[in-house]
């Protein structure tokens, strides 16, 4: 059975990854992890809280569905993120996309997990979760 694909368009507390040349240098010199950790701690509190909340939701989703679920996070502040935001008209973050057909906007735990359940178990999901909360 093909696993369901859950994609989340949301800003994440990234540390670097916008200069891939530099990333390689940091890693080769063995100081990449320390630098990334220091940068992560300098992000805004609300972004860190959002990341922590998302992490707990994803852990819950993985616990429930294990290998039947593939997860991917797309940062909107990237060329790929912009293309995604335009294609799926994501104007608020996070926006959750299930199999690129069902869209759940915002922190709507029950709507997201219900749609995930229905998709993973094979029952057709009602496309009622489209509006932002």
């Amino acid at each position, binding site marked *: 059975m093909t696993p369901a694909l859950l994609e989340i368009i949301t*800003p994440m*507390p*990234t*540390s*670097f990854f*916008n*200069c*891939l*040349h*530099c*990333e*390689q*240098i*940091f*890693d*080769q*010199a*063995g*100081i990449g992890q*320390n*630098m990334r950790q220091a*940068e992560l701690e*300098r*992000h*805004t509190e609300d*972004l860190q809280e959002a990341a922590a909340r998302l992490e707990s939701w994803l852990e819950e989703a993985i616990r429930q569905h294990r290998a039947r679920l593939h997860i991917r996070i797309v940062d*909107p*502040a*990237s*060329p790929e*993120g*912009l293309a995604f*935001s*335009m294609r799926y008209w*994501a*104007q*608020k*973050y996070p926006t959750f996309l299930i199999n690129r057909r069902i869209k759940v906007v915002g922190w709507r735990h029950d709507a997201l997990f219900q749609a995930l359940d229905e998709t993973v178990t094979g029952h057709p999901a009602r496309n009622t979760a489209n509006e932002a909360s």
Partner: protein
Amino acid sequence: MNVLIVLLLAALGIAVGYGFYARSIDKNIIQPDPNKATPATMYMDGVDFTPASRNVLYGYQFKSIAALGPIVGPIVAVRWGWLPAILWIIFGTFFIGWVQDYSSIIMGVREEGKTFGALSYKLISPRARTILLIFIYLYLLLIMGAFGKIVGFDLMSNPAVPLGVLIVLGLGLLAGQMTYRWKIDILLTTVITVVLGIVGIWLGSLGPVKDFFLALGGGAESPIVFGSVTWAQVLWSLVVLIICYFGAVLPIWRFAQPITYVAFWLVFLGIIGGTIGLIVWHPAIDVAAFPAFTSWDGKMGELGALGPLWPLLFVTIACGAISGWHSLVSSSGTARQLEKEVDALPVGGGAMFLEMFLATIALLTAVVGVGGAQYVELVGAGKNAGVFAVGLSNFLTHIGIPTGFGLPYASVFLVLMALPIMYLDIRFMRVASAEFLGDSIPAMRNMHVGSIVALLLSLLLIWTGFWSYIWILFGSSNQLMAALALLLVSLWLMSKGKNYQWSFIPFIFMFVTTMGALARTSYVVIKQAITQAATLPSDKIIGNYIAGALGIVLFLAALYLAYDAVRAIQARLAEGRAEAAAD
């Protein structure tokens, strides 16, 4: 000859090189197994080891290997004539460039994603890892020197450029605020910042603005402050380094990330527009004005000799033909994300051949976009990057964009390509100094102290010496890494009992060539500093001694490496003989 023929030759190089030679080695020697687990699938941790589709990985690989190198190198190298330069770009990629990138990925995958340093330690000697780190540090310093001169001395000194750059930087800060603080969606953020960025570049090209910045830089004949350095060069190199300071100490989300994001779109639009303009225009190369071959020592018109074609051409064009930098990206970055072994060739080989195409376009900006007479004039005035800006703006005129806007746009484009690398470079140097010197000198743990020390070292290199020598040393440090990568791959192939000639012969060529370039450059700069002490400006004398010292350190490090490599090869061959005797 029409430029379309040059583009066609490059395309033919790709078709034969990738489609026949690379595929043949992939199929007959490496024999990738699509069902074999890769480190990305075995050790998936969601951070370093993450399987990615070959399409995504192709983009990652290309973005990692392509920066200013494939643009500036070919522009400098056409002083030997455009034919040697294009031949090295095509044949260098064909026989060496893709070999290194692809085999580094394969070696990384089959050695469980080990870093290049760890592989050097294992396959050559413990000392090889230290030598690699020395290369990396010197490489970073040389990046700051080479790019700092291009941006501070060359591009920002053009009065039509600074306002556009400063506005784009401001818009980057705005993009960060809109994204992370005001939670505005990315589409609106992108449209507002990119459109305003274009308007800002246009504003910078207006007469009164140019007059203001010209006056700020001391007028049309900017006064000399010391040695041969003018007030405009001092001013704009300091401004560039202040930008780097903020890039090094401010949180990534506040400065580096959003500025790079806005800059990406402006650079992307420039590349697309320029390529379309070139194809629409498709002029013939005027071989009378821009000879296919000028002279063996790179003397073109009134420009002085650059040096012997061998070895200097082969380090002047590094990225675009073969660059050691790519092996770092391939071995520890891409190799940890490869989903299947069979993806190594399209990702590693494919991205290298695309970079070859980018280098070809850059070469054409000098040859047809600028032309021989103006090229000599610009390079003679020390405006190497200006050649690309003028050439690109000429391409843009063929899609209706006037030079009055196209020229500052192309100059801002180059500044935006270089700045993110520079401020992250400084960020690395400050963290590295805190890590390695923090215990003995506690002040180095302070981010401001570490950044300022790195900036002062960079400033020393920017304000002194000749740019062309710094560029050759930058290329040499890069190519030494390439030689190291090819050596590692050859040793690894030997240890697996596979044919290694296809990587060992390129290693010999790269090693001998780079050592020749380093020895010659070190000799010339030190000799010049000694024999011309009475006539050279003081800054150039200091710069020549610094460049000479850097060259000698690199040369000695490479000698140590060669000594260890010979011993490793001897040991490997002895092992083979012992195994054969036992059988």
